């Protein structure tokens, strides 16, 4: 019978896998997808806590996280496309003009 600890352990595991993905991957779009995975893990934690306390505000917060993630994906992908158009590369290692 999975209790709240099980769901939160799964959320923590997914969050960490997303964090490792952000560190390791260099394609900008895959990096972005790893950030989305971290947001999803946070959503799972929020929904679990909502069920733990019997309070629906957790689900409302998860809903807001989804909306903000959608807006973030729209703007972020537009920026990635813009960088690709001018630099012809989707690798985050190549966008180093501001490097000292």
């Amino acid at each position: 019978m999975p209790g709240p600890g099980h769901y939160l352990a799964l959320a923590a595991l997914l969050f960490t896998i997303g964090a490792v993905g952000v560190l390791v991957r260099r394609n900008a779009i895959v990096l972005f997808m790893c950030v989305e995975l971290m947001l999803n893990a946070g959503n799972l934690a929020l929904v679990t806590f909502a069920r733990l306390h019997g309070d629906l505000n957790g689900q409302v917060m998860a809903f807001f996280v989804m909306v903000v993630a959608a807006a973030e994906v729209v703007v972020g992908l537009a920026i990635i496309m813009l960088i690709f158009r001018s630099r012809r590369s989707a690798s985050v290692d190549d966008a180093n003009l501001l490097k000292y």
Partner: protein
Amino acid sequence: MTAAQPLLAAGAQSGEAWVFWLLAPVATAGAVGMVLARNAVHSALWLVLTMLSLGVFYVVQSAPFLGLVQVIVYTGAIMMLFLFVLMLVGRDSADSLIETLRGQRVAAAVLGTGLAVLLATGTFQALAGTQMADLAAVNAAYPGGNIQAVADPLFSRWVLGFELTGALLIIAAVGALMLTHIVREKGERRTQAELMRARFAPGSYPGPLPGPGVFATSSSNATPAKLPDGTAAARSISPILKARELTAREAAGKETER
């Protein structure tokens, strides 16, 4: 009826246990597959698998509205947006296997494992003795079920946040339009007469492009069509696809010159 309710509750609980222990490895496998996949499109598909299993988790945890929003909005809209942008931008730029920062992968693996163990055991042990509250009763208090139960705080207590996130979505859409807008000067755009004249000018082929390969031997779009002398026609395959090499049987002639 009161005797059947504990049985129903026990059935629901064991059903939830089945769903959890079946889908938790699936979600984890999707996450790991997304991080480790070489091809960016494969990464997106692994993430879709994870998001779908998370949607099922939300439904099982008495949040059916959020579960369906997860499937429809997150998986259906956001991941499709990712796939469209991959189609335009990142499809053939796979990560090279050589890591430019020394020790980055080892450090990421070690620290990642440490963080996972720390967070997972910390949260698991902190919540060891607690029980889930009965959210089904909260959902049943409203005639509209979970949807109305989520709408009640959303439109009363959090209405300001709701309006602000709506404005944020509009700003994001307009911002994406502005960022990707290509500015064309007035005289730059070629008229239809110019396009037609250039099409029939010597040196450019006016007909349609040849379609991809022979469907009798392979149904892949990456199979090139064959010219009359047997070589592959380079114009018959899309430039972003890797041309599928013809097998020996397919490259051999069809013996029609008997």
